[in-house]
């Protein structure tokens, strides 16, 4: 399985946020991180892949034009976890998973109803260590819990392609570790997982590949050690940074100051 993005253009109003972007193929088992400064088009790219924003160009999954597929089929193939997860809803976590399962046309090929559907939802919650929250109202969750539930919602249909928009923004260090190691594990199980991350240290630690965007165009793409260099960081972010190599080929980024006043 592979995801191919060619010549992608996404406009918001008259402004082209992403203009003719082509990316190297994403392969099955890969955990990729999209990074870049504010307004680089990271979330826009992710939402366009998810089919939430109209785009031109081609996005193909296994040679199939992703957005030419029926919506229910797309929803089965692609799981999307949005950035804003505010909820005032009195629905319980379990209810929200049932809704995630049924709202987009149900699980294709697996019509789960009644207790079977509930059991499946609980299995997914248990996998992410959230079973205790099953009967808690969404509105009563903390920001971190909501984000964890968001991942469970995106995974409920067992998608092949998992898109996470800043999945760790509300998480403490332990939960960040938990979520990102889970994300990488999900990729290794036979999926493509793409996350937008602001934190380059996390990107360097967890990603198989970093896609660095700037102004809606590709700046660099490759292993974290190749992409995150003092030079590229200075060009893209306008910062003076040191990039230290640690054990196991890991990379650490330390910012010393601004290179562009």
């Amino acid at each position, binding site marked *: 399985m592979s995801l191919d993005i060619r010549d992608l253009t996404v406009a918001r109003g008259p402004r082209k946020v992403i203009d003719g972007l082509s990316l190297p193929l994403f392969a099955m088992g890969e955990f990729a991180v999209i990074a870049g400064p504010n307004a680089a088009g990271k979330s826009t790219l992710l939402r366009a892949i*998810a089919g*939430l924003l109209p785009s031109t160009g081609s996005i193909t999954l296994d040679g199939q034009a992703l957005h030419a597929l029926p*919506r*229910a089929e*797309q*929803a*089965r193939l692609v*799981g*999307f*976890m*949005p*950035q*804003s*997860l*505010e*909820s005032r*809803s*009195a*629905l319980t976590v*379990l*209810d*929200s998973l049932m*809704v*995630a399962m*049924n*709202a*987009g*046309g149900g699980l294709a090929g697996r019509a789960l109803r009644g*207790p079977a559907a*509930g*059991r499946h939802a*609980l*299995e997914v919650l*248990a996998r992410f260590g959230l*079973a205790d929250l*099953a*009967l808690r109202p*969404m509105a009563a969750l903390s920001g971190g819990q909501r984000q964890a539930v*968001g991942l469970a*919602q*995106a995974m409920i249909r067992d998608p092949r392609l998992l898109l996470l928009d800043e999945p760790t923004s509300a998480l403490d260090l332990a939960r960040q570790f938990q979520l990102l190691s889970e994300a990488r594990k999900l990729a290794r199980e036979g999926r493509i997982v793409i996350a937008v991350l602001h934190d380059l240290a996390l990107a360097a630690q967890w990603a198989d590949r970093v896609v660095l965007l700037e102004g809606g165009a590709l700046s660099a793409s490759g292993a974290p050690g190749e992409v995150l260099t003092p030079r590229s960081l200075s060009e893209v972010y306008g910062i003076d940074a040191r990039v230290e190599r640690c054990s196991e080929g890991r990379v650490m980024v330390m910012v010393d100051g601004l290179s562009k006043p």
Partner: protein
Amino acid sequence: MSAVEAILAEQIRRSQRRVLLVLLLGLGALASVLLDLVSGPSGLPLGQVLGALTGAGEVPKAAEVIVWQVRLPVAVMALLVGAALSLSGAEMQTVLDNPLAEPFTLGISASAALGAGVAIVLGLAIPGIPALWAVSANAFLFALLALGLLQLASALRGGGSEVVILLGIAVNFTAAALLALVQFVASPDALQQLVFWTMGSLVNARWEGIAVLALVLAACLPFSLAASWRLTALRLGSDQAQGFGLDVAHLRRWTLVRVSLLAAASVSMVGVIGFVGLAGPHIARMVVGEDHRFLLPASLFTGALLMSLASVASKLLVPGILLPVGIVTSLVGLPVFFALVLRREAR
């Protein structure tokens, strides 16, 4: 029992409780209709009313006429109007993500009133419509025009709910201003008729009108129920719902068409009725929660119950005088509603 089984059992228990509550609301609405049938200035005993309804036993001709020609149309119309307005309000509140949305606040009722005013005062009506139905037909047409405007706005601006709400409020004020203009030029007779119409009244309920409203409700309800999972998904936020694979703009557009038809049909039959479309869904939500598989039927029954009780109250509040039901729903219903809301907030 394992933790998973315990949670599942609790989930099933909650669902069963909600089904039961929905059924109780339905029974409550039916009981209220019976109450509506036995209350009235002519004081028919329950036995005669039931006899007239079922055709069993000896029933005076007068009782039969009162039940079939006067009380039953009023009672059934109250039931249907309440159900339609409340269902319409529930869906509007969800797709526009606004607890204040209802046919009244979005200008659909005001437009219908303007349509009625044009027919009553200016004598302008749709050609080919019998005089008896001219007011209703005009009201319906104007309500649909308001719907058209809302649709146009949401299509042009990508279906955002804020745009729809703001335009709805604008339509509301514009229609009210135009109605005031129509009232300004009206003859005293026409003015009286128009004011009475805008108060909302069930006295003119006729079987033909009931049939039209019942048809609209029967045509819309299956689509509403079929959309219940998708509507529930919207309660989690439209971003989230889109992530689940929902076409939110499409859902919003078609839901608005459906609820506007319901509201237009109701208002054109009985005049402007506020409050039911707002309070019905809120009360239903307090009772069964946000899962639309339960919330939509619960709203339907709650609206029917409220409207039916208002119909009873409109006969009993001032002995010997039949108050316009629109006044009763607002005057009696609102304090009850606020008490409910405040009690919930206090908890």
